[in-house]
């Protein structure tokens, strides 16, 4: 089962920059319109929001919170990627354990992980490690499932050719499995990236006194819609730009991959 299918199989040529600019402007206009429609108390308009974001970004307090989130996120991402790929390769290469584990992984993926937060808190306590653990449990499973699927989908004829050429297991890994898997694994990383960020921020909302998640939680309790919108804007911008970069690489890899 594919967890998330990538959005487009065929490779489009890149859009010109002015088209993207136009698109962003029309998004901002739609936002302005929506804000005028429901009233700025419900949905703050783009101008106030950018203003607020600018003020926020220039305070030192916010900088500390953002740095905290960034640190937790990077640690979580590294753990999720490394563990996820190792686990995925192992399960993919060993047929039986893969068959045993796959439905269990999919089941784990599909449980609402927010409800597991008491367990994480009990295991790790408040603070950085709980946030990291939260990010990891969100991100690791898709990475693992994608990697497993990729290893399994390596065409048998490559493996047989390699066997005929008497490649050692190590050469087999570097010369056959790794190059053949990279596009799929990369798609897994893309999904894993998003979910790890989500997990880290959710972790901060409950399990921390610092970080952007904590600030969001505070703003939510105080019903401070302007702050929420500003932080969401920041997150969306960051996530979308990284998403855009990853998607571009992803497409290039997919285009280079031999069609099996």
């Amino acid at each position: 089962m594919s967890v998330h299918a990538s959005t487009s199989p065929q490779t489009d040529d890149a859009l010109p920059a002015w088209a993207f600019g136009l698109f962003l402007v029309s998004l901002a206009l739609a936002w302005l319109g929506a804000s005028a429609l429901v009233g700025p108390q419900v949905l703050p308009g783009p101008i106030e929001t950018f203003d607020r974001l600018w003020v926020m970004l220039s305070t030192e307090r916010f900088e500390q919170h953002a740095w905290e989130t960034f640190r937790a996120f990077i640690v979580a991402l590294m753990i999720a990627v490394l563990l996820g790929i190792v686990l995925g390769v192992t399960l993919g290469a060993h047929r039986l354990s893969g068959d045993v584990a796959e439905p269990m992984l999919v089941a784990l993926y599909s449980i609402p992980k927010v409800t597991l937060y008491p367990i994480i808190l009990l295991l790790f306590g408040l603070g950085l490690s709980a946030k990291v653990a939260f990010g990891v449990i969100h991100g690791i499973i898709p990475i693992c499932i994608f990697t497993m699927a990729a290893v399994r989908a390596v065409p048998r004829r490559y493996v047989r050719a390699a066997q005929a050429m008497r490649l050692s297991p190590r050469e087999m890994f570097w010369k056959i499995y790794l190059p053949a898997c990279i596009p799929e694994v990369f798609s897994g990383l893309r999904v894993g990236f998003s979910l790890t960020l989500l997990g880290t921020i959710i972790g901060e909302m409950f399990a921390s006194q610092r970080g952007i998640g904590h600030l969001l939680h505070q703003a939510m309790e105080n019903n401070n819609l302007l702050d929420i919108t500003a932080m969401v804007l920041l997150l969306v911008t960051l996530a979308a730009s990284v998403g855009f970069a990853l998607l571009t690489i992803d497409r290039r890899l997919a285009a280079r991959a031999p069609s099996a």
Partner: protein
Amino acid sequence: MSLVAKIRWAVIVGFLSFLELICRAGWVDGISLSPPTQIFLTALSILGTAEFYRDAGLTFSTVAGSIFAAVIFGFLMGMGLHRFPLVRRFLDPFLASYYSIPTFVFYPFFIVLFGLNRFPLMAIGFIFAVVAMAINTLSGLQRVPRVLMRSARVMRLSRWQTIRLVIMPSAAPYLFTGLKLSIVYSFIGVIAGEFILSGAGLGFQIAFSYNAFETSKMYGLMAILLTVVGSINLYIYAIERRIYSRRGGR
């Protein structure tokens, strides 16, 4: 039962016995973790209380509304994106990074929009689930083999026939994935919302028993919830299998 299923059960049973052992032997304290047998018994006793059915009714009806709306709108969105490739290309980076936004921060907006009732929670489940459905619908539509579309043209199928006989069956695996994800994400959205923000429902009860140090009640509720979500997904998986096998091997 196949060998794979046997091993799978052995792993699960082994894991549960391990938990049981470390709890009973006192290696972890009772506030952190309850032994599985006790969780099971608590879950049974929770199932006998009227309070549970009130909360479960609230949660499940909200989730059902959210799933229903998400599947329909997600499907339409996917069709729209497929129909207008230019829009899709602009939206691609946003769709790809959609799931890194903690959607339930929008709860305050929905409260102002809908008032203090179950609709804001339903809306959170909906916006969390709808994009998964849309993305999968889009993938399914895009991956209809061109050969099939050409055959349909050659056989002069009408527009409706093409949709019914060619596109839908071909996209079915993706649509099912979308459906399954919509269900899961609706649950996640609604329960996460209840967990943090609401005063009723299963998510709230879990948070409440956590705060009240009623560990075994908390785990009992989680076990019930996970069983329900798991069984729904297994049921859909079974339907999916039956459809594929009727179509002849996949």
